[in-house]
């Protein structure tokens, strides 16, 4: 049995998932894309959070969730309509619920007055239908509605209702261990309908062998309902896989059921006291039998099995540190495999077919392990994107603008570490878009744009990298203003000739901020430069493009993984370097006639009619001034981040192999043109080139943020 601490951790992890389901559901209702089950799903999310919080005695959380749930219940039953104002309040309440949970996770709590304000705002809206009184009654006296079920149901004739549905429900032995509570399910199932419940306790063991952690009971519930089978089954959605469930939608009730019918609320032996006040108080009235009473077995009716639920594929939760450790070890494995291969190739006995074959298999196996580990770490960006909806809501509210977030490519999978470290930069970029990018509503109306601004967040895989864009339909960059500010702050000289791209790039300089007034969101001078350094820390790049009056697009390009890449090992100026294979288009040995000079220093290479900038790697990195005969005779054509390509001159190509990426940032700093370093088979270090950056670095002086640069 896991300790309490572990269970609590699991609760918080699950709460996160439930919160995102909650928010997603509310958004779906807001945008009108909900399905029949969406409201139920939203209700269940809050309900589960309440249940879990009760188990850990988080009273404030339970209280809040309960009142939240009550409002959702009104929505579910159709007593409330999903109007914009109500949904806004619901979203706000869900945000606040998230805050409360994260506060509880850190052992603290939120301001109880604030809790009260948020929930009162919601309740005020939900009571606005004129049914406030009724609502209150429902909130605080759930028994009042449950009253009819408290009577002996067997005596109540089932005469009304559209049709009769019989549900047989038996939790699996381990259902309690997963936190399920049949009492709640039965209550949800009955809802506002007439119900007849019979208990099947045939599986109850002798008192001596009774294990209170196990579930022994089964129920048959016959409902007089207007709900569809699907709606009825939806009640059991979250115990899916932990119970036997059959549903028979009969035209008329089986009279044979009635004599045995005995309404029962599940014993709450295992429910913490704070979790289920209503269920507990129901017990005496309903005459629930103690679970361990060895009363005569009630034969269960044999309903037709229909709509049996499929078990979800089993998953496990693993501490990310364990996976990280696996990745580290894997990195060492790849290095040592390379060392072993090299050692064997140089030993006199080399040439044996067996050795060769084994080495080959070793190589394949280590690649398979690597792919599997990477697959473990890969996660869809959806949870990250989902978090941004809240940022947009809060930022637009604070800025007094109306904005909506549109997401695309949420299923794109990226290494978990990257996802985690993207949250801050993305938050910042989105806040920037809303704060600086979008115009105020009045101004948008004047310009004939829709009043509501749109921030579009999208993710996609592109040539071995992941590309994330944040696009707004705002005013675009005011280049004159940017330039003027940069000059005022002494970031550029007043006489400098700057291209539009260079002006845009000024936004990334430390200490730059164009907001004339400092808002709560941005304009504190730590902005895009932090975004850039954080993205660069992940081996990525940030690009900016803007069209005046139409909006700004920020593009982040990131490697798929931070651990291993396929590299081409080559020589330039006596140094061994690595190029990511994913960037390489082709290698060739050009004729002299293919090369053309442009101006004094630059030259281009004519590759089948396409003129590519020609760059000598050794010179661009500052390892040599000029080429000697025999050097730079091989050209590798690599693609650049945008659609273009560049031709790199190298001295010789040595090998193609997997290399383990070792960051330079930790001990040194960033180097223009260099993505990272790696350790080769002989134990020496080789630098991994970033061709795009190399091309850009060639035309720029060394960047000032190299942390080891001379003072």
């Amino acid at each position, binding site marked *: 049995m896991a300790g309490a601490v572990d269970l609590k951790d699991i609760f918080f992890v699950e709460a996160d998932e439930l919160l995102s389901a909650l928010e997603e559901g509310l958004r779906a209702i807001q945008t009108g894309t909900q399905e029949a089950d969406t409201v139920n799903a939203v209700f269940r999310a809050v309900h589960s959070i309440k249940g879990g919080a009760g188990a850990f005695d988080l009273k404030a959380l339970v209280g809040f969730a309960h009142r939240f749930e009550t409002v959702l219940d009104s929505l579910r039953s159709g007593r409330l309509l999903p109007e914009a104002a109500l949904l806004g309040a619901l979203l706000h309440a869900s945000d606040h619920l998230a805050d409360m949970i994260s506060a509880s996770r850190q052992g603290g709590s939120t301001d109880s007055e604030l809790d009260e304000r948020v929930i009162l705002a919601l309740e005020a809206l939900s009571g606005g239908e004129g049914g406030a009184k009724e609502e209150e009654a429902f909130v605080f006296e759930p028994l009042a509605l449950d009253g009819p079920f408290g009577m002996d149901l067997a005596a109540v004739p089932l005469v009304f209702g559209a049709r009769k549905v019989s549900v047989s429900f038996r939790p699996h032995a381990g259902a309690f261990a997963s936190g399920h509570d049949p009492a709640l399910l039965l209550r949800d199932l009955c809802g506002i309908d007439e119900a007849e419940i019979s208990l099947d306790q045939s599986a109850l063991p002798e008192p001596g062998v009774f294990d209170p952690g196990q579930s022994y009971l089964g129920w048959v519930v016959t409902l007089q309902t207007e709900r569809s089978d699907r709606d009825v089954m939806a009640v059991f959605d979250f115990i899916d896989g932990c119970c036997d469930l059959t549903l028979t939608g009969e035209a008329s009730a089986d009279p044979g059921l009635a004599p045995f019918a005995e309404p029962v609320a599940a014993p709450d032996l295992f429910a913490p006291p704070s979790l289920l006040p209503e269920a507990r108080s129901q017990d005496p009235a309903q005459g629930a039998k103690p679970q361990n009473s060895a009363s005569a077995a009630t034969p269960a009716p044999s309903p037709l099995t229909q709509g049996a639920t499929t078990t979800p594929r089993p998953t496990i939760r693993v501490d990310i540190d364990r996976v990280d450790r696996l990745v580290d070890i894997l*990195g060492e494995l790849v290095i040592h495999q390379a060392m072993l291969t090299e050692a064997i190739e140089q030993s006199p006995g080399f040439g044996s077919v067996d050795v060769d074959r084994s080495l080959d298999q070793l190589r394949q196996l280590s690649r398979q392990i690597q792919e599997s580990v990477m697959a473990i770490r890969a996660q869809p960006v959806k949870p990250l994107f989902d978090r941004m909806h809240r940022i947009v809501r809060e930022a637009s509210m604070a800025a007094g603008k109306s904005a909506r977030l549109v997401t695309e490519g949420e299923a794109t999978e990226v290494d978990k570490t990257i996802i985690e470290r993207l949250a801050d930069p993305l938050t910042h970029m989105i806040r920037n878009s809303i704060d600086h990018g979008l115009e105020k509503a009045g101004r948008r109306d004047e310009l004939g744009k829709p009043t509501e601004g749109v921030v579009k967040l999208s993710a996609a895989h592109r040539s071995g990298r992941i590309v994330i864009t944040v696009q707004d339909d705002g005013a675009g960059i005011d280049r004159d203003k940017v330039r003027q500010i940069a000059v005022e702050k002494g970031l550029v000289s007043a006489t400098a000739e700057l291209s539009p791209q260079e002006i845009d790039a000024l936004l990334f300089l430390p200490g730059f901020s164009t907001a004339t007034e400092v808002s709560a969101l941005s304009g504190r001078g730590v902005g895009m430069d932090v975004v850039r350094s954080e993205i660069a820390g992940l081996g990525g790049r940030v690009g900016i493009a803007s069209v005046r009056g139409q909006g700004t697009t920020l593009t982040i390009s990131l490697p798929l993984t931070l651990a291993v890449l396929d590299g081409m090992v080559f020589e330039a100026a006596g140094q061994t370097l690595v190029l990511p294979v994913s960037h390489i288009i082709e290698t060739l040995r050009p004729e002299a006639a293919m090369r053309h000079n442009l101006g004094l220093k630059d030259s281009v290479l004519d590759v089948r009619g396409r003129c590519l900038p020609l760059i000598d790697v050794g010179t661009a990195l*500052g390892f040599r001034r000029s080429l000697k005969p025999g050097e730079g005779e091989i050209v590798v054509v690599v693609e650049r981040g945008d659609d273009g390509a560049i031709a790199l001159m190298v001295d010789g190509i040595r090998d193609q192999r997997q290399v383990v990426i070792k960051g330079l940032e930790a001990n040194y700093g960033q*180097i223009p043109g260099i993505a990272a370093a790696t350790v080769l088979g002989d134990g020496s270090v080789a630098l991994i080139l970033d061709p795009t950056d190399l091309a850009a670095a060639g035309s720029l002086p060394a960047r000032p943020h190299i*942390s*080891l640069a001379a003072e």
Partner: protein
Amino acid sequence: MRSPGYASDPDIRELVAFRTAGQDFCIDILSVREIRGWSRPALLPHAPAFVQGVINLRGAVVPILDLAKRLGLEPIEDTDRNVIIVAAIQNRTVGLLVEAVTDILSVPASGVQPTPDLASETTRNMLRGVVVQDSRLIRLLDVGQLLPQADEAAA
């Protein structure tokens, strides 16, 4: 891991003494991770002259600083006999290239004298003081000064 000297008397500092460009230096033993033989580093582009390159230290990529160049002294001979002192400086691991490690000193706090005023500004910034022992003058390096203060945002 703690040396006996520290356990018995907190006033005694243990220092690793070494020699480069004809001068004696020392650094606190607690910042030294290991001492290893020279191996050829991979060059780093656009690096300051005193950065020799990077080497592989059991899977970690570690930059090598030529201490003589860093302090603006005469260049040292490029031989296999040079050693690298691997030191932890401000959460970074850095290798210091020196000619030879001479010994380990136990010096009471009072044994460290302030740097004489004669020294130039650059030299004085890099030193925390001097230790005189057996008619040798051993300069106590302020390792934190070897790396220029890294910009927090860029680090």
